[in-house]
């Protein structure tokens, strides 16, 4: 049966009608069965009633043997055509009287049987007692033809059943056609929505909800599902779009990369060409060495450097070329290089094919991907020879310098003693001669005494100059504010004489030699007080500023200044810009300052112009390592 393919509407109607029909048929069957049984019962009762009447009426006929009467009584049964036979038996069980319709006489029982009715096919027959009072006078036999009654009943029943069935079917059909909408309509709505969605791919459509039953829930669930699908669809579309865009950009990227790759390949071949040409034209040796220390590639410069051709070298251990004394350190460096360390400026010596030694400076690095050492070697033999010479002369210079210093120190020291004697004797002589000598002699004596004094100052200054290195003390933290203060106390008299003004800013504490710092500042401030134009009150400013690891200390005056083209001269020993008559001095002070600055790893500079004052700037490290250079 293709019941599952027919629409729900018709299915529902069919189910309803089928159910109704089955119920109706069952009901009709039971009703008719009941009716049938009742009919039989009624018939029996009717027959029994008729029989009883007949029997009661027959008593006299039987009692008085009146056959005519009996027949007459029995013939009353003509009014009941269904009774097809009747008979009376007397109390001797002899047939007394009979009645029959179209029935052979011998069909009647010969003798009465037990009282009571029984059905036999279409006929109902029975025996009834004929009683008068409590006395039995005989027996009545009746035979009833059920056939006609049954047929009549059956046709009537079938007619009713047919009518009922027809009406029930019609009413049932109309009702279920109306009522099935309750169920089918929401389903149609759902199905219609689903169909329109699948046809138009429009997920924004929603099924109409027609109630709150299971179909309502189904509709809700369906709509919810649609919302989900709608969302998913949107997400999917968005992702597709995104993916397309991504693919597009990836494609573009790929094209660009391909273009780049082509460009790169061109560039690479150009680079290879360039590298080959450069390598061929290079003066330096460019080579690669494998992990076993064998030359893998080398450029033609090797012929120039070591006297060997490229072919002679490739496959050879490079260490074979190294001068035996340099082999250990070369091996150490090679190990470092292969450990990933980049080595530059490594120097060693190689044996030239002609037996001479070649000084070589190396730059090398290890390529992990190619398992090769890439290196460039430069011939530094010439440079090395120059350096050797330079080193020799520097050592020579150092020695002569220190000899000179020693000499200066010793000489100054030893010169002091006779000088002191000259001075003291000259003073004594002046005291003793008094006015005994003339003015010219007096003047000569005074000049001698002054010259001795100048010499003493000169010697002291020279000593001080040489002591900067010979009497050096270790660096300790020095508070420059305190040093400046001490210097100002020492210079108090001179400051007062010149009416000078000294302004001091806030100064730091630095690592330095305190005595030398004091000397440095004393010299600079002293110069400021000394070199001023007559009639001008000296103003000196001491300030400073941090500059990274260094401190810049400035001493500014408003003195006579100098032409900057002489700036190198003022820091040189015995160099003076002014005559001794104008300003006192040995010309050593600023030389000492430079020496002190240099000993501290710093420097001294001066900015000035004639008549515009001077600014001396000393740059000193804030911290010292205390590893003093000689």
């Amino acid at each position, binding site marked *: 049966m293709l019941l599952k393919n027919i629409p729900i509407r018709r299915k529902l109607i069919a189910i309803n009608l089928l159910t109704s029909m089955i119920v109706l048929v069952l009901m009709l069957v039971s009703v008719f069965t009941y009716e049938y049984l009742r009919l039989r019962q009624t018939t029996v009762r009717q027959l029994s009633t008729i029989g009883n009447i007949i029997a*009661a*009426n027959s*008593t*006299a*006929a039987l*009692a*008085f*043997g*009146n056959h005519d*009467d009996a027949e007459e*009584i029995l013939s009353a049964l003509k009014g009941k055509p269904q009774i097809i036979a009747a008979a009376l038996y007397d109390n001797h069980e002899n047939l007394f009287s009979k009645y029959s319709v179209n029935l052979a006489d011998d069909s009647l029982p010969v003798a009465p049987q037990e009282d009571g009715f029984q059905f036999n096919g279409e006929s109902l027959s029975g025996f009834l007692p004929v009683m*008068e*009072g*409590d*006395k039995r006078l005989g027996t009545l036999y009746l035979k009833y033809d059920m056939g006609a009654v049954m047929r009549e009943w059956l046709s009537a029943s079938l007619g009713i059943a047919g009518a009922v069935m027809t009406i029930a079917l019609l009413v049932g059909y109309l009702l279920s056609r109306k009522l099935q909408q309750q169920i089918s309509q929401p389903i149609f709505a759902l199905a219609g929505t689903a169909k329109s969605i699948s046809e138009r791919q429009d997920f924004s459509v929603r099924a109409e909800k027609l109630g709150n039953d299971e179909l309502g829930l189904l509709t809700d669930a369906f709509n919810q599902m649609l919302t989900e699908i709608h969302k998913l669809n949107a997400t999917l579309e968005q992702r597709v779009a995104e993916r397309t865009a991504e693919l597009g950009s990836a494609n573009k990227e790929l094209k660009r990369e391909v273009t780049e790759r082509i460009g790169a390949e061109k560039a690479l071949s150009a680079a290879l060409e360039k590298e080959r040409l450069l390598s061929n034209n290079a003066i330096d040796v460019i080579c690669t060495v494998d992990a076993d220390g064998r030359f893998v590639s080398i450029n033609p410069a090797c012929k120039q450097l070591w006297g060997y051709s490229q072919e002679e070298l490739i496959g050879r251990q490079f260490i074979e070329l190294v001068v035996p004394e340099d082999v250990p350190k070369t091996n150490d460096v090679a190990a470092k290089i292969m450990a990933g360390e980049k080595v530059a400026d490594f120097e060693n010596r190689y044996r030239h094919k002609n037996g001479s030694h070649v000084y070589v400076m190396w730059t090398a690095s290890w390529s992990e991907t190619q398992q090769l050492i890439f290196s460039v070697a430069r011939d530094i033999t010439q440079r090395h020879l120059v350096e050797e010479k330079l080193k020799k002369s520097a050592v020579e210079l150092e020695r002569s310098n220190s000899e000179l210093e020693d000499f200066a120190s010793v000489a100054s020291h030893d010169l002091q003693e006779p000088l002191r004697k000259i001075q003291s004797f000259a003073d004594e002589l002046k005291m003793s001669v008094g006015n005994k000598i003339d003015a010219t002699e007096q003047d000569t004596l005074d000049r001698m005494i002054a010259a001795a004094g100048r010499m003493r100052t000169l010697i002291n200054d020279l000593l001080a100059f040489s002591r900067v290195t010979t009497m050096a003390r270790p660096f300790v933290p020095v508070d420059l504010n305190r040093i400046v203060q001490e210097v100002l106390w020492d210079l108090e008299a001179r400051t007062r004489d010149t009416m000078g003004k000294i302004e001091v800013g806030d100064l730091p504490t630095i690592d330095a030699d305190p005595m030398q710092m004091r000397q440095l500042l004393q010299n600079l401030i002293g110069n400021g007080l000394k070199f001023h134009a007559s009639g001008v009150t000296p103003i000196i400013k001491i300030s400073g500023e941090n500059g990274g690891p260094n401190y810049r200390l400035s001493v500014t005056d408003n003195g006579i200044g100098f032409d900057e083209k002489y700036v190198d001269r003022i820091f040189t020993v015995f160099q003076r810009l002014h005559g001794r008559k104008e300003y006192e001095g040995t010309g050593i002070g600023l030389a000492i300052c430079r020496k002190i600055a240099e000993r501290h790893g710093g420097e001294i500079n001066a900015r000035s112009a004639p008549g515009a004052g001077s600014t001396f700037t000393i740059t000193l490290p804030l911290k010292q390592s205390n590893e003093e250079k000689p």
Partner: protein
Amino acid sequence: MKAAFLYNFSQFIEWPAGVLSGSQSPLVIGVLGNDPFGGYLVELVRGERVNNHPLVVRHFHQAAEIRTCHILFVSQSEANQVDQILAHLKGRNILTVSDIDNFAVRGGMIRLVTENNRIRFRINLEAARGANLTISSKLLRAAEIVGSGRN
């Protein structure tokens, strides 16, 4: 045969209230004059009961002897004295039965007639009513009804 009729009559007749009042009181069938049944009637009713009343047969020679009696058969021997007998019994609740000619016309209640070898009976309803007896319609069906003074 006629004896059986007498017996059967008892079943179709209703006596007035007061007669046969006791439940056990016997229903008496009397025979006036010569008994034509011999001992047959006595044999017939022996042990029989009608409505729980035992049946008893009595013989009378004169009407004056009759005391308790419910059905009285007047024998042929009394044919000449029918009128007297009936006059004597007038007003009493006794069913009078006889095969004497014109018995019913003369005021008797049931006359037995033999026709074509069959026994028939004629009933005088006025007479029966006069004696306050009710005769079952069923009995009447089987009988021929006559009036007083007619044949």
